């Protein structure tokens, strides 16, 4: 059957409009059950035992005291004697007991002895000569990194009218999922079928991780995620905790719920790597950038993955780029909301504004000169208008103690779709059940399913029952890379269209017409050329009799696309006596192709702005270089933006037909990318001096002002 394109947006009744999310009532009443809330009968509490040392060899592991504690039902070693632990927080054992408190007691009773080794927990220390080897002898703390060149960058700099040098750096950021990582595992009596409730952004990837680790088939494991409390890229596989939980449940012959503690979540569930970027950027008088050079390094802890795309977004003529991953004794990085891009954006946007100041040019004009995206050119105009860019004065030119500044940053992302199937069931009573094995990590995937089905079947959203988050449903991919909506929406459309057409075939006879003339709108099926030939949805479905309809379909590439543009403009006040930054307003402009639900799309843009601002000004994983541990693995000392510091945030969903007509593209990640660059540039515009490292704290603002005062900037 030929796939029909999305209908023209002016004919859409649900898609592109604002629909409150379909599971909002469950969430506001407390009825929504998250993994942390799932408690099968006789469910035990699991708890992990962690290594307290940053670099240590296990010399002995004694489980007997934990096993002997009343209420303890299973104790499991996850590491053996002689195994190395490479960061504080590595999991070494797991226990299951009748209550969370007793499980915590039992975890303390697991006796592990270690031989400790020198360690290194900061990038700059890891790069020193004779630094302790984070990964053990013979494995360097940093790779050299390939040098990537495009053109003769030295000649370009020699011919440039202005060049700037700057070192811009970004810190390690925690995902800080409010629901910690974890699962509930329940085996059947024969212990060959496993049901798992997982706090995950990939039910199928959790299933596959478990089958691999436990030697099971896909048919033996079912993974369910009705609701999950945040992932941001860190929750794809079962994790060590998930595998341990399944094994504990088998040992104890009882279901087990194992959720990480907040401290474990902070130290051992992933993070965004740091970056230190030594940038040189040169341009001609008219603003044409002719050369970009970057020497960068960053750490993904004991893991790799600290690279980022360079040069970011803008045409730079020539390029020389070299990046090294640095290894330290800290928890490894995982994908985090637009992996690499916020780091890349902060470095590039900072350099662009420093270059604009060096050229005496307006920062937006400099961007337009070097930005190949026509759509973003139009977005700059909207952002500038809404933020009041015309109020911007040359950097550092304002008198007074509290100075106002304006800044801008840009973003790009892919966000294409694929690999998703769906099932649409239409029953004789008129009910419609749509099944898809995707999951909702808070972006509104369940609502996307219902909205698209409602649009295609001509029904209200409330008439659709969307079922997601279960590996027994048709397969879909993990929710990462902003791929969920562009994967799911087309699959739902294709399948709903097939179901609708099959129903038309039944109805046409009753209406004395042909299926091709029928349309479904407003809860009716009618002949598009003869209004007298119509039947209500319910009566039409009654024609199905005892034969409910069940149709299976798949994503079609013609309905989705990839590649988005966006920008963010910031207005800040900086108190030059205290260093306090007050972000007054953020305008975030973002396209995402065909907008499925405008309301939740705006929410994504707002959420990205908030998370980006939080990273820009507050968040920082702080490692204790004496003890080798994270000092702030909790929510009172790992600072996240809270309500008193909130600016006004103005989300602009790009609704130009040129963009909407591209099909569905994801929006989850791009809005977080440009925010730190925009805020950093606004701060520089206000005070006239760059604060080149995130988070931009008061202390750094004051230090920068002091340098400026000394003439040492």
């Amino acid at each position, binding site marked *: 059957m030929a796939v029909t394109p999305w209908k023209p947006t002016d004919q859409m009744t649900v898609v592109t409009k604002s629909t409150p999310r379909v599971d*909002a009532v469950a969430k506001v*009443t407390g009825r929504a059950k998250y993994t*942390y809330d799932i408690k099968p009968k006789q469910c035990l509490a699991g708890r992990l035992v962690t290594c307290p040392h940053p670099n240590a060899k296990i010399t002995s592991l004694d489980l007997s005291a934990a096993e002997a504690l009343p209420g303890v039902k299973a104790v499991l070693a996850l590491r053996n004697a002689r195994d190395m632990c490479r960061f504080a927080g590595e999991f070494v054992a797991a226990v299951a007991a009748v209550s969370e408190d007793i499980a915590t007691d039992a975890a303390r009773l697991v006796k*592990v002895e270690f031989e400790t080794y020198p360690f290194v927990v900061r990038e700059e220390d890891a790069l020193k000569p004779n630094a302790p080897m984070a990964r053990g002898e013979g494995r360097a703390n940093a790779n050299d990194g390939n040098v990537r060149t495009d053109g003769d960058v030295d000649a370009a700099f020699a011919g440039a009218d202005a060049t700037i040098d700057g070192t811009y750096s970004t810190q390690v950021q925690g995902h800080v999922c409010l629901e910690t990582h974890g699962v509930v595992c329940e085996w059947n009596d024969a212990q060959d079928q496993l049901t798992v409730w997982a706090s995950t952004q990939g039910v199928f990837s959790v299933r596959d991780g478990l089958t691999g680790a436990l030697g099971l088939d896909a048919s033996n494991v079912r993974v369910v995620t009705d609701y999950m409390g945040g992932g941001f890229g860190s929750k794809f596989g079962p994790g060590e905790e998930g595998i341990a939980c399944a094994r504990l449940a088998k040992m104890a012959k009882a279901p087990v719920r194992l959720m990480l503690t907040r*401290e474990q979540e902070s130290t051992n569930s992933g993070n965004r790597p740091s970056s230190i970027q030594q940038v040189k950027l040169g341009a001609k008088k008219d603003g044409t950038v002719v050369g970009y050079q970057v020497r960068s390094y960053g750490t993904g802890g004991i893991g790799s993955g600290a690279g980022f795309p360079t040069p970011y977004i803008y045409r730079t003529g020539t390029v020389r780029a070299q990046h090294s991953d640095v290894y330290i004794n800290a928890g490894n990085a995982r994908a985090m909301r637009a992996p690499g891009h916020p780091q890349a954006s902060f470095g590039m946007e900072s350099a662009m504004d420093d270059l604009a100041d060096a050229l005496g040019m307006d920062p937006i004009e400099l961007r337009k000169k070097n930005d190949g995206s026509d759509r973003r050119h139009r977005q700059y105009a909207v952002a500038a208008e809404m933020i009041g860019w015309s109020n911007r004065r040359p950097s550092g030119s304002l008198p007074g103690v509290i100075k106002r500044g304006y800044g801008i940053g840009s973003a790009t992302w892919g966000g294409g779709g694929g690999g998703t199937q769906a099932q649409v069931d239409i029953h004789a009573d008129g009910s419609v059940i749509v099944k898809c094995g995707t999951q909702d990590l808070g972006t509104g995937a369940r609502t996307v399913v219902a909205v698209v089905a409602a649009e295609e079947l001509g029904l209200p959203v409330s008439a659709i029952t969307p079922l997601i988050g279960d590996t027994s449903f048709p397969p879909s991919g993990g929710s990462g890379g902003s791929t969920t909506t562009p994967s799911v929406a087309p699959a739902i459309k294709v399948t709903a269209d097939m179901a609708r057409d099959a129903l038309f075939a039944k109805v046409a006879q009753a209406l004395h017409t042909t299926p091709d003339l029928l349309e479904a709108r407003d809860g009716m099926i009618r002949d598009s050329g003869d209004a007298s030939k119509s039947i209500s949805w319910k009566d039409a479905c009654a024609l199905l009799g005892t034969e409910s309809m069940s149709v299976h379909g798949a994503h079609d590439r013609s309905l989705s696309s990839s590649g988005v543009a966006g920008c963010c403009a910031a207005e800040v006040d900086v108190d030059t006596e205290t260093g306090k930054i007050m972000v007054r307003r953020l305008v975030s402009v973002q396209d995402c192709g065909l907008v499925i639900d405008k309301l939740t799309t705006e*929410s994504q843009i707002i959420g990205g702005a908030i998370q980006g601002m939080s990273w820009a000004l507050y968040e920082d994983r702080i490692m204790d270089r004496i003890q080798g541990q994270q000092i702030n693995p909790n929510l009172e000392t790992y600072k996240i933006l809270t309500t008193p510091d909130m600016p006004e945030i103005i989300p602009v969903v790009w609704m130009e037909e040129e963009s909407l007509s591209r099909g569905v593209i994801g929006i989850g990640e791009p809005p977080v990318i440009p925010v730190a660059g925009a805020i950093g540039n606004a701060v520089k515009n206000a005070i006239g001096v760059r604060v080149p490292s995130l988070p931009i704290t008061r202390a750094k603002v004051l230090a920068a002002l002091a340098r400026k005062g000394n003439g040492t900037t």
Partner: protein
Amino acid sequence: MPEHTKRPDAPSHSEEPTSSQQGGVSRRTFLKGVGGATVAASILPVVRPNAGNAQEAIKGVSMGPVTLKVNGKTHTISRVESRTTLLDALRNHLELTGAKPICLRASCGGCTVLKDGAPVYSCSILAMDAQGSEITTVEGLADGDDLHPVQQAFVEHDALMCGFCTPGFIMSVTALLNENKNPTLDDVKRSLAGNICRCGTYTRIFEATMTAAERMREGA
């Protein structure tokens, strides 16, 4: 404002084992668990053998009944440990899982419930100390299928994403609007300072709060 009572058995960094040997639940650790609480006469002391060190009996943890009035209904839990928090009692004994365990140390507001009308961090109150109080959880706000105005406004304004922090925010907003019928935006920002959202819903929560306040003033 929520009580900032530190949870007695909250993990404390300075007290985490950092020596090369882990293990051994100390008597002090357990005593800490009931520190500041009055052990009622009806609570029977339980002595557990400390398998890590058989010479030292663990004292201080006791089991007993706790009676809680939650959402207008009285529940008696026959046996809970004295160190059981209100949050633990709600979630694991009364199956009221709306209040969420997020930080477990009075930093994030995810476990916020109303105690005699005031917002408190239920992770930081012992269940036994909540006896005799009227506890309201997010499950107790709606009247059957009729949502509370705060809940309704959260739905309409999309003031939630993953939803894990949402019950805590709803309770904090409800407490604010019970006290202050006509809050300014700054009042709202200040009163929600003890709640953390990671997805980034604050803007929507402010909008929802203003809408709910308006409707509650009109008696809707």
